[in-house]
């Protein structure tokens, strides 16, 4: 162990890492190496052990056995503080920033200097210098809430760099970004590695991994199925197979079909957000039977408010009709009875009651109707049968129908929600971010289920930030920007770049 910092073979070397959670072997003799100046992608389904491995590296967990070497030196981290001292910085998927404070204030938060007086001008200059070195542009005196998501992410990266990070862990950094922002991020990552930083890039998205990563490690069920291989020569299919252990069909099998009658008719809809500001501005559109209408947009442009207005969870002006029946400003029960199914954005916060059982969660929409309802009572044996049926039909992985749903993985939770909503044979499905955060296997299932509903004649409103998915699934696409629909087009007549431009407001087309 006489390597100096610069000629050490690896920036990070993890050997035979074993970590066990009750009943699960989260990391089963995993090896992982990161060379200085490289981007190493870490790929795997939810629950494959990626986060666990990174939490071991950043000092949150201690492995049961295994060796960690940082720049050739064996280390043992007792807390994240130790890891930061060794130059390991993590950029979380969910930003940890205080919205009302400035960029500089956020970067300094929790540090020992400055001790008493903030001397912001001095630190603003320091941070500008840091920005210049790595090509990360943000106004240091801007407040976080004024920044776009991409800029906020830059602040997070600056935060780790300011703390002296040499090894950056980026946890699904592209999940929240628009296409142009993703390209900028990839540029930034290259600049960082050119300057000698090393990056661990966690992702679900196979295309990005192929584009940006120098090497690749794939985890599946706690084991590495590929260790430090070169992704350039692998196809998307090969990568997916390494991740899920079987072949994955990427070809979405969407049959051409003639749309039927109008199901949802939205006319001149406006609504405000929680702070009372205009969030949706005079939006009109309609969706037909057997048609998927996609709405693209960067998060926070009125999507959530639009969906809440349609599903009866938010007050609005204008009209919303399902098969001619007005449901705007009516209690949710009315739209449910009109055959509306809603796959909410927030699975835990809205879509399920986490401490209740699978059974109690699948009867949320039909508990007031026979056969689940039996007079004043709920027929629990019947409800359990219903739940068992859905569990089998939709392959929801849970120990039993009495398991609390908070113990389910993200993919299984989403399958449960879809099972519940679809089993009511809906006329209209409003799905917001139905595949976000899911692994390829679960995404495939969810997409298939939506297409099957389209075939059965349901009208589907799909809101997603995954443009590939939106383009492939939708029959027609609109883009929402600043509360307005800035373009409606046939999905055959458009491409990702056009939509991306519209999402950032730099292009409008009325049709």
């Amino acid at each position, binding site marked *: 162990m006489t390597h100096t910092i610069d000629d050490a073979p690896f920036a990070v070397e993890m050997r035979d890492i074993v970590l066990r*959670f*009750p*009943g*699960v072997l989260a990391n089963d003799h995993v090896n992982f190496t990161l060379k200085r100046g490289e981007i190493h992608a870490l790929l795997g389904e939810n629950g494959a052990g990626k986060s666990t491995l990174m939490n071991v590296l950043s000092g949150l967990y201690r492995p*049961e*056995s295994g*060796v960690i070497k940082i720049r050739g030196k*064996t280390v*043992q981290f007792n807390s994240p503080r130790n890891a930061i001292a060794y130059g390991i910085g993590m950029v979380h998927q969910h930003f940890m920033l205080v919205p009302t404070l400035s960029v500089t204030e956020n970067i300094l938060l929790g540090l020992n200097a400055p001790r008493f007086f903030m001397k912001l001008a001095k630190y603003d200059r320091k941070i500008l210098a840091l920005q210049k070195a790595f090509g990360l542009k943000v106004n240091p005196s801007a407040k976080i809430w004024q920044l776009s998501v991409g800029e906020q992410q830059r602040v997070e990266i600056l935060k780790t760099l300011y703390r002296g990070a040499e090894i950056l862990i980026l946890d699904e950094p592209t999940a929240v970004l628009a296409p142009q922002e993703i390209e900028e991020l990839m540029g930034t990552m290259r600049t960082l590695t050119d300057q000698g930083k090393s990056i661990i890039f966690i992702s679900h998205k196979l295309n990005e991994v192929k584009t940006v990563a120098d090497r690749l490690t794939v985890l599946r069920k706690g084991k590495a199925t590929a260790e430090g291989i070169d992704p350039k020569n692998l196809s998307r299919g090969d990568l997916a197979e390494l991740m899920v252990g079987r072949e994955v069909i990427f070809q979405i099998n969407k049959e051409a079909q003639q749309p039927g009658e109008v199901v949802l008719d939205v006319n001149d809809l406006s609504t405000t957000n929680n702070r009372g500001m205009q969030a949706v501005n005079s939006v009109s559109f309609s969706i037909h039977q057997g048609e998927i209408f996609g709405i693209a947009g960067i998060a926070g442009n009125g999507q959530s408010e639009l969906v809440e207005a349609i*599903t009866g*969870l938010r007050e609005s002006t204008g009209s919303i009709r399902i098969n001619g029946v007005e449901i705007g400003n009516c*209690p*949710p*029960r009315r739209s*449910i009875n009109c055959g509306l199914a*809603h796959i*909410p954005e*927030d699975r835990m*916060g*809205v*879509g*399920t*009651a*986490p*401490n*209740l059982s699978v059974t*109690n969660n699948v*009867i*949320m*929409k039909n*508990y*007031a109707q026979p056969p689940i*309802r039996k007079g*004043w*009572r*709920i027929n*629990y044996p019947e409800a359990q049968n219903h739940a068992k049926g859905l569990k089998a039909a939709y392959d929801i992985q849970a*120990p*039993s129908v*009495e*398991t609390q749903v908070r*113990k389910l993985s993200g993919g299984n939770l989403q399958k449960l929600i879809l099972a519940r909503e679809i089993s009511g044979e809906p006329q209209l499905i409003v799905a917001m971010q139905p595949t976000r955060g899911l692994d390829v296997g679960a995404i495939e299932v969810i997409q298939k289920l939506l297409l099957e509903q389209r075939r059965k004649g349901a009208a589907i409103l799909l809101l997603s930030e995954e443009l590939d998915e939106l383009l492939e699934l939708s029959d027609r696409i609109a883009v929402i920007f600043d509360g307005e629909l800035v373009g409606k087009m046939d999905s055959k007549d458009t491409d990702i770049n056009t939509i991306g431009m519209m999402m950032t407001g730099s292009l409008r087309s009325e049709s």
Partner: protein
Amino acid sequence: MKSPIKITAERRMEEIPKWLPLATSLGAIVISFTISGIILAFSGSNPIRVFRFFFNAAFGSWGAFSDILVKATPLIIIGVGCCLAFKMKIISIGAEGQFYMGAFFASLVVLVPLVPLDSPKILVLSLMALMGIIGGALYGLIPGLLKAYFNVNEIITTLMLNYVAVYWNNYWIFGKYSDAGFQMTPTFDKVAWLPRLADMAKEIPFFSGITLHLGVVFGLFAAVLIWAILKHSRWGYEIALTGDNPRAAKYAGINIKGNIILVMVVSGALAGLAGMSEVTGVVHRLQERISSNYGFSSVIVAWLAKLNPFAVIPVAVLFGALIVAGREIQPSGLSFLIQGTTLFLVISSDVLLRYKIRITRRKEEIV
């Protein structure tokens, strides 16, 4: 030097066994008595003797046991009402005031009087029960409306309304309905007394002096009712869903405002019924301090019972025993000490339901 063993708490991933909540609660009670015993020993008494005395004071005779059940009766009736509200995560601590209002409304039947006092007993008592229920329900309706329509914090409103109810009660017993200037009404006519076991002492001498009254049947009935609501009814499902995630409940089309009001009304009605049962079964008049903090103790009883209406019954009996025994021993604070430590430990013992404690030998450190 690090200790050779390591104690870690791990989040439970698997289902918890059905017996575990009961075991941890019982364990907590045992530990709380142990702690109280240690404190007693330090204060110079013999804990074993004190506890034996304590036990005899509570369970030593049928008379004493019947006293315990009399004390447990309001705790059961109010406690199951608390289960309902807490299940929906409505933290109503207004049972004390609702209890007084129920007692007041029920008393009006004989004080006004609303029916001639030579009416059949069953009619008078039924009307009193109904009035008690109405009084408590109306008094639960006020904070219910405030919470549903103006999102006013129910903890504050229910707490404040308790004081209002006590003084409202005082106003009438000091004034219009005072018995010759004393702070109480005249004793009710016997027609307004709930039947007691002692009433049958002529036929069955064993019941002589046994004060247990019909109110305990109200308690059992209330427990069955609330159990049926929570466990089997559609309404109970809505309550559980709203309690666990109000946003999901709204999304499922549940009328949350209506349910808040209804839950407050029903739990208030039960507290009002408890007030009626106390004035007709125990004190036989309206007076000051008819409640020995039943409204507040019931909050604790419901929590200790883990919001299970049937578990409320034994817990209420335990609390009744603490009240009865507390009268017999000095310092009387001991029963409060046990109550406090029990509550603290039972609530803390929930940690064991969510985490598994593992004791492992520390491995050789990797250097």
